[in-house]
């Protein structure tokens, strides 16, 4: 069987929604079990006290990246059909900065706030309300910056295209950064995290 299943018509629109719900439930379950339904644990990341967020995220990226690559290599996945989002450089820089600011102030990212709402955390309920309000404001004000949003469109560009390196080389570099990051983050946890806790 070839993947992406949906694009090869292995199932239709309706079944794909069921698949999405099942995957979504699993995603939420494991986020909660990892402790990511707790704003304190997420925020601890930014004080070098608990680098779990960084480690989990990078592991997930590396796993998915290697999975996509090896499935394609084994002929089970048509990599040309895998959706690669469009890069809009400046809006994504701004959006990333705003999201990072919201993350450290609120203690959640959009996904984990939903997880935390499900476990009944009131701070997450307020956070979630803020997210919806923010989206509403954005929607209402959209005409003001429509030009900015659609400028700097770089198409579906990937890191190998951008640096004109081979796919494999970029993967190797990312894996090395991940492993180095895991080792480095544990060292930081020990050194800076302890110092902060003591003070």
């Amino acid at each position, binding site marked *: 069987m070839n993947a992406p299943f949906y694009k090869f018509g292995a199932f239709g629109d309706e079944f794909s929604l069921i698949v999405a719900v099942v995957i979504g439930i699993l995603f939420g379950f494991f986020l909660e079990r990892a402790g990511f339904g707790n704003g304190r644990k997420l925020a601890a*990341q930014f004080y070098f006290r608990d680098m779990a967020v960084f480690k989990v995220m990078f592991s997930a990226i590396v796993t998915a990246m290697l999975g996509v690559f090896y499935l394609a290599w084994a002929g089970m996945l048509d990599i040309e059909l895998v959706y690669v989002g469009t890069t809009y450089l400046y809006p994504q820089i701004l*959006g990333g900065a705003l999201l990072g600011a919201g*993350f450290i102030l609120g203690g959640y990212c*959009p996904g984990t706030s939903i997880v935390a709402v499900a476990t009944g955390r009131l701070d997450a309920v307020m956070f979630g309300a803020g997210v919806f309000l923010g989206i509403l404001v*954005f929607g209402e004000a959209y005409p003001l910056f429509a030009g900015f949003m659609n400028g700097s469109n770089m198409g579906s*560009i990937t890191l190998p295209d951008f640096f004109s390196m081979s796919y494999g080389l970029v993967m190797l570099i990312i894996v090395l950064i991940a492993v180095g990051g895991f080792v480095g983050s544990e060292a930081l946890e020990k050194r800076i995290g302890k110092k902060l806790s003591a003070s």
Partner: protein
Amino acid sequence: MLMGIGAKFARGCTSGQGLSGGAVLNVGSWVFMLMVFLAAYALAYSVRRLWI
């Protein structure tokens, strides 16, 4: 609110851009993740009273 506006500007959130986009080596996703962490670390010191 910041979060909702940020997610819309970037056309995706941590999971959508960071995880899915990161795995397919999308340039915008990596720029986005870099900015998320930069901004959070930059602000972390000023709002440390909230968390420590």
